[in-house]
């Protein structure tokens, strides 16, 4: 019962954060014009949220389906991949590595203030990472990959909705050429551990 609750809580928190983070990445990496974003408040700080209905629906569906898997602890990594427009090769990968905290030693963060602060700093790092990455070419597109355990496949088929199915990723989208890793942030809480890093291809400069 305890374990189920912990997964449930971490799934709620992570899915919320994932939504905010995706919007943030889209804004910071200028995948959509800034005009379609609006300032909202989350974790007591202002964030940018895309207002385009198709984009928001797409993001919310991704998050919903991820949440189902997070509740059972099946997801190991969620990756937001920015692809080049011409041949859909990956240029950047924002990886959120998730591990569930097995230890039952509870810290003093009963009201999740520390967790909120950590998630805020993740968002800040996402903003700042712009300086550490090379600029993207125009008209890039993006997609989301999730890395799961083998056992998750059956559950996805059971629970996924018909109009939004997860499919196996193409190998061309998963492999980065000449990758360069930029670690951003890691956190550890009572419920889960989270690590964020960016990989970018070394060939990006040539494409610009």
């Amino acid at each position, binding site marked *: 019962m305890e374990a189920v609750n912990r997964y449930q809580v971490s799934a709620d928190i992570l899915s919320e954060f994932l939504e905010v983070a995706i919007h943030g990445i889209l804004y*910071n990496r200028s995948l959509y014009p800034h005009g379609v974003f609006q300032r909202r408040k989350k974790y007591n700080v202002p964030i940018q949220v895309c207002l385009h209905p198709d984009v928001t629906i797409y993001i919310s569906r991704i998050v919903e389906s991820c949440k189902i898997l997070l509740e059972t602890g099946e997801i190991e990594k969620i990756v937001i991949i920015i692809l080049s427009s011409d041949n859909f090769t990956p240029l950047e990968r924002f990886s959120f590595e998730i591990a569930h905290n097995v230890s039952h030693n509870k810290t003093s963060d009963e009201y999740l203030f520390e967790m909120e*602060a950590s998630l*805020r700093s993740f968002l*800040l790092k996402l903003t700042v990472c712009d300086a*550490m990455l090379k600029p993207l070419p125009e008209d890039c597109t993006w997609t989301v990959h999730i890395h799961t355990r083998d056992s998750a496949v059956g559950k996805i088929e059971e629970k996924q909705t018909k109009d939004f199915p997860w499919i196996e990723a193409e190998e061309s989208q998963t492999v980065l050429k000449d990758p360069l890793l930029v670690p951003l942030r890691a956190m550890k809480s009572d419920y889960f551990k989270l690590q964020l890093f960016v990989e970018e291809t070394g060939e990006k400069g040539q494409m610009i």
Partner: protein
Amino acid sequence: MAGDAGANLLYLENLDEYVNDENKIVTYKWLSCTLQIHVNLAKRLLYLFLQQERNEKDNDLSVTYFVAGQHKDNNGNQKHICCVVPETELSTVKSRLSPVTSCHIYSVHKVKLKDTNALYTTDYEKIKEDIYNACRGITCMKYICSKQDHAHNYFTPLAISCEKKENVTAPPSNMTNIKKKPEPKGSIATMFGNTNKKTTVKSEIEETSSQNKTEKPKTQEKTNNKKDGMKAFFKPGEKKGDDSFLDEKPKEDKKSPIKNQTQIQKDTNKSRNGKKKASSDAEDNRKNQTKRRRIKADLFDSSSEEEMVISDEEELIPPTPPREASPVPSPRSPSPVKQLPDKQSPKKQNGEKRAANNNSGERKRKRIKRLVNKTYKDEDGFMTTEKVYETDSTDVSDEEEPIPSKTQQKTPADTSSKHEAQKKKSPPNKKQSPVKGKQMSLTSFFTKK
């Protein structure tokens, strides 16, 4: 100046680390909080850092500026505008403001910010890290000064009293004797001697003013100023001496009954001093004798003495009309604190007491030191309760129990055998009131010295 330059260099190195190595957004507030420096210094450092990076390293950093000024809108309404703008828009924003009241660097960072969200998040995060120390760099000098004064006053009352003595011309021998008593002793002893100090200081000041020395007013001012910290402990008694009793009383009646009691105790002290002046030499001699007796009695049979004092008070209270009028608790209540609340002027009291003493024929004085809880509001606005020794001197008439009279008879010129006898007598008394006995024996130890 050289030290400042060195410190600035260190700060600039820190800044270089934050901006270039750690890729942080450095706002002036963040810098002020992180390095615990003043915001103005933080702004200056950011400016210096930017100059250094651009001129020497040719490093292209993005900067945001804070600009404020007056602006007239289309309707002709004057507005005061404050905004954070990127460097590229600085000139256009400035041109819109007719008098620019403020313009300084707000933040320096490597990343080219698309909005100001990150600036807010940076500051917010820093403040949340340590909310109590976040703004230590932003300080009010007035507050610091008052704090320092308070600390100074709190710890140096003794030193101040010594200074006074050095500056002032040699006072009469009696007073010097009184003064010397408290100095070598510890803090408790100084508290005991405080009432004496008050009187001596006043008399000194009077003397010096009569001699028209230039230094004296300064010393007086010094004492007034510096004693502020300790005033909280002893002031009520001192003030009464300076001001009229009528003015002070209504204020103090509002306070706790304990304070009232201390006031009265001190009043009785004063009355005692007044009497001293008036009394003849023979009387003084008598007093000295009684004093000696008392001291010895204090040493060896304190508990019995306290009982005696209390009983005397009980006897004295009824004849004074104001005490009858005041809401005095029953005279036999065990604590002496409750017995004394009094609204009457002490002068009247003294007169009546004198009369009572004259009737009895012989005059004795008892000095009692009591540990009293004093509650007061300190400079920071906190209610503080401290245990303070209060000196009380009361007139004692002849109408006494046989026990003290015996001790008086024995004491006059005496040897150890009599003390031993007293010691033997003391135990049964102590049994009657063990707590009081302990307290008195401690206090009497100090008075003897």
